[in-house]
């Protein structure tokens, strides 16, 4: 459900830029977030579509760049991309593992506008 709040924030940010740069229509929005940051892209697009009606963001496609989750293992000294963070090294099974990337918060990178 937090996708509703996030969609509203995106629309507000676009409103600020529309006022500054004078564009009227947004074709697409490129965004990035870490794989483990609890964003569900389909839910977010749905929430966005509903709330963007009547704003410059109406009809814009959300183009997501999902940043990989990476762990560092202190046992085998490897940096490995993982699908989820379990605290175990998928290579050597070591438990001395830290998550070094993957929880980046959602960012707007670029807008394609007319």
């Amino acid at each position, binding site marked *: 459900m*937090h996708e*509703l709040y996030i969609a509203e*924030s995106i629309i507000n*940010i676009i409103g600020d830029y529309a006022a500054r740069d004078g564009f009227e229509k947004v074709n697409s929005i490129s965004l990035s977030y870490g794989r483990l*940051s609890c964003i569900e892209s389909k839910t977010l697009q749905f929430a966005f579509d509903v709330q963007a009606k009547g704003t410059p963001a109406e009809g814009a496609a959300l183009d997501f760049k999902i940043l990989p989750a990476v762990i560092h293992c202190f046992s085998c000294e490897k940096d490995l991309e993982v699908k989820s963070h*379990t605290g175990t090294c998928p290579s050597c099974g070591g438990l001395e593992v830290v*998550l070094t990337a993957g929880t980046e918060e959602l*960012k707007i990178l*670029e807008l394609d*506008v007319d």
Partner: protein
Amino acid sequence: MKVTVVKNVLDANNRIADDNRKLFDQHKMFVINLMSSPGAGKTSLVERTILALRDKYRIAVIEGDIQDTYDADRIAKLDIPVVQINTGGACHIDGNMIREAFPSFDFSKIDLLIVENVGNLVCPAEFKIGENIKIMLLSTPEGADKPAKYPLMFQESAALLINKIDLMPYVDFDLVKAKRDALALNKDLKIFEVSCKTGTGLDGWISWLTKRIDAFKK
């Protein structure tokens, strides 16, 4: 035409949370963001914590729920300043909701503010409110698989209280697995095994919390 933005979508909330924190710091108020699933025992922990620390600190509480004032009524019985925030459907408390509760409090008369978040194991971990520490509860009937299934909250919290430890003989809760998985996600996580019903294990929590508050106030 391309417009470069590079803006964190949660910036608006982060900014409000930072402002909240500045205000809390000015008043030397220690703020806890308490999170768990619904029914894990957050309000019971708040009650226990108040009873243990009310002679040492001036305590206030913000209760977050989707609707109703059931929790706030429980806290008000202890004669503690309390505000109920009804999120009206939102799955978490954010920085701005906390802000709206400010006029109800006299910050110069509060040492410890406990914010009981909406019962939810996912979203509350994503929204800062200006807290000093996040604390989470996991109750034994929920199952030991929760750290593995819902990692973010365990990663973000300073302490984990495993509550309803008195129910261990009746539920299949693998305590070793729960602790191992939680610590794998967050090596600095302080874990307490407690029962808010019987009081078991709460001394450790209270003494740890007291040290954190006193260190902050110095």
